[in-house]
């Protein structure tokens, strides 16, 4: 189960993004992501998480600073279809079925996959039996899961997930939290997970980056050295609880910064 493209090392150097209207969404982010690891970006809503993800995906260009994926700019990775994004809004094409949407990703990446493999992915995200359903017939959570399956279909070296479980119900979310890490570990995928859920970040990742309210700046970089496989129930164990507390403390610290969050209200 090797990925189609080897997992890359990603480096952000002094990345700042100021939108045309003057909104500064990301400020001076310096980060390196090691290949094959899962990193969570945690921060309050509207802080600039999606923007940072889109910068890394090459969908936005930094106002200043540099992003480098395996020695090249993101646009190069895009060209080789070495990355996939599961967007915050599932963005399924309404005229295609679940299977059709997954096949679209393969078409766009100019890849072929066995029907069996697509079928397995659909089962993995718990949509078995809905392969031929159109997005309009699915719930919000089901659509998000279809988008996750689509992102996995091209076996990307770099997987970018933007709040992928926002609308997924609790039980299914726990199921996915068990199954997805197994898949990306087996594939050696470098994964970047944007979330505002602290427990989700601790449960799924090897490392949590905590961001301040807008413009996003790094307040903490916390290694999550819990053994795998992990179980959602395991979050109640003392070492996991301590990590969660650290992340929460870092979030509060960010909110308390003079020009942000509570202080800025």
């Amino acid at each position, binding site marked *: 189960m090797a990925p189609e493209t080897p997992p890359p090392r990603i480096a952000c150097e002094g990345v700042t993004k100021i939108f045309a209207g003057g909104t500064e969404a990301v400020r001076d982010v310096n980060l390196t992501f090691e290949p094959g690891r899962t990193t969570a970006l945690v921060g309050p809503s509207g802080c600039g998480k999606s923007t940072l993800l*889109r910068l890394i*995906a*090459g*969908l936005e260009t930094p106002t200043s600073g540099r992003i480098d994926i395996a020695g090249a700019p993101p646009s190069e*990775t*895009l*060209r*080789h*279809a070495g*990355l*996939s*994004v599961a*967007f915050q*809004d599932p*963005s399924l*094409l*309404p*005229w295609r079925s679940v299977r059709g949407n997954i096949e*679209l*990703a393969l*078409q*766009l*990446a100019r890849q072929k996959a066995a029907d069996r493999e697509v079928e397995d992915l659909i089962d993995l995200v718990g949509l078995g039996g809905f392969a031929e359903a*159109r997005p*309009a017939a699915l719930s919000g959570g089901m659509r998000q899961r279809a988008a996750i399956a689509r992102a996995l279909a*091209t076996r990307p070296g770099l997987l970018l997930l933007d709040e992928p479980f926002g609308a997924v119900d609790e039980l299914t979310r726990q199921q996915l939290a068990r199954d997805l890490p197994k898949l990306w570990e087996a594939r050696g995928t470098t994964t970047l997970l944007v979330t505002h859920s602290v427990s989700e970040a601790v449960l799924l990742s090897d490392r949590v980056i905590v961001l301040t309210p807008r413009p996003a700046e790094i307040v903490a970089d916390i290694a999550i050295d819990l053994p795998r496989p992990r179980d959602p129930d395991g979050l109640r164990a003392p070492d996991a609880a301590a990590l969660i507390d650290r992340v929460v403390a870092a979030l509060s610290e960010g909110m308390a910064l003079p020009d942000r969050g509570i202080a800025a209200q």
Partner: protein
Amino acid sequence: MSMAASWTGTSLWRIQASRARALPGLVVLLIGWELAARLLTDAFVLAGPTEVLAYLVEDRALMARALGETLTNAAFGFVIGNVAAIALAAVALAWPRAERVVTGLALLVFCLPLVATGPILRVLYGPGAGPQVTLAALAVYYTTLIPLLVGLRAAPSSWFDLVRSYGRGRFATLVHVRAMASLPYFFAGLQIAAPAAFLGAMVGEFTGAERGMGVLTVQAIRALDVEMTWGLATVATAVSILAYIAIGALGRRVLLDAPPVILAAPAGASRGRLAAWVDAGLVTLIAVGAWWLALLAFGLNPFFAKGPGDVFAALVLDDDAAETRAALAAALGETALFLIPGYLAGLLAGAGLAVLLILVPMIASSAMPLAIALRSVPIVTTAPLVVLLLGRGAVGTIVLVAVMVFFPTFVASLHGLRQAPGQIMDVFDSYAAGPVTRLLRVRIPAMLPAFFAAARMAVPASVLAVTVVEWLATGNGIGSLMAISASLSDYDMLWSSVVLVSVLSALGYAAVGAVERRILGTYAPEQLA
């Protein structure tokens, strides 16, 4: 937001699915028609459904030949016009900076008065089906181009991001996203285009064709043959409605979702005033250049093929320029007296009735399918009837223009009113707001964009209506001036009126667009974003 809404929003088809509800309305219409005909037998203006049917059965061979001819011309024009629309949309898409120039030129051509382009095309083509097919193509390409342009952009940006995230470019976006996303809009355009092509072919046949429905219509009017006039109008109406329904059915087979009711793109104000003037200048320059080059390239006889220089001379330089200008101004003045009241009355009646109906939902749901069907009727083909009924005076003409404007406005307004976003309505419900409050605060602002789109498209349509009636029947105004110039071979006058009418129509369209921007800026600013 509003773009994705077309995939989830109110469905024209849901309304059409209830077509059965139009039946009672239709029956009432037929009975009323028959009764009126019986009452007015001595007036020789109105033939009832039974008389029309008898006439059609008796003269079925003649009618079938004429219909076959007109349908063939309309079909050719329909295909050519739509292919042209697709090509123009492709240019605008491939080269976004050119879009305003492309649409500006397209509008100008769409504003050409068919009544005068008909005779001009006749002398250029000589005998045959050339003018009919050309006019049919001219009548349809704009109604397809505009929805298509809207549709090609009608996708949330995340769909484009998705394609980009796999490193693919504009072509993949076109194939995988834009083409499919535009289909509902494309079908909405085609649906309006089908009856328009029929109308274009008929008007083309008015200008000295040998065969076809248009030829028979002219004969019927000249001979004051009431049954024939009504018979022809009935056939034209039926054909138009059937074409409209057929394309709707085809769309339903092909698509998941209903075609949205979009008659014209919102008048975008995103670019500056200066850019707008630059574009307008470019459009004028290209139009004049293309006109001049076409005459040169085809080596046409300068006696009837006048160039931009000839028209300028006729209007400004020649000895009799002042007389020409005076004649044109007098004719335009006469026309304006019919056109403006008719246009405003049509808008007012369309929007007014839609607002009234929305307060009585029961009636609205059965009036809608009937109105949609009647919107597809090329009102101009019924011009002879209106003249028969209301005489050759002002009332008949004004009514015809108003009717021409009424149906598209009514349908668009009703759609806009119904499109009021559900959640907002829920909020108002939760405050127990009465129907009038909701109407004023939510529904009418939601209606405005569709209303104005219809109002803009109605400008060239009403010019067409008024010039056709003047030409066929009343004998005054610019329509009649063009007809007389054509028959007297006064080509200077004819070309000058074509230029003047087109430019004035395009300016009228732009003026409505300016009012639209003003009002939307106040009531529905998100529409301009």
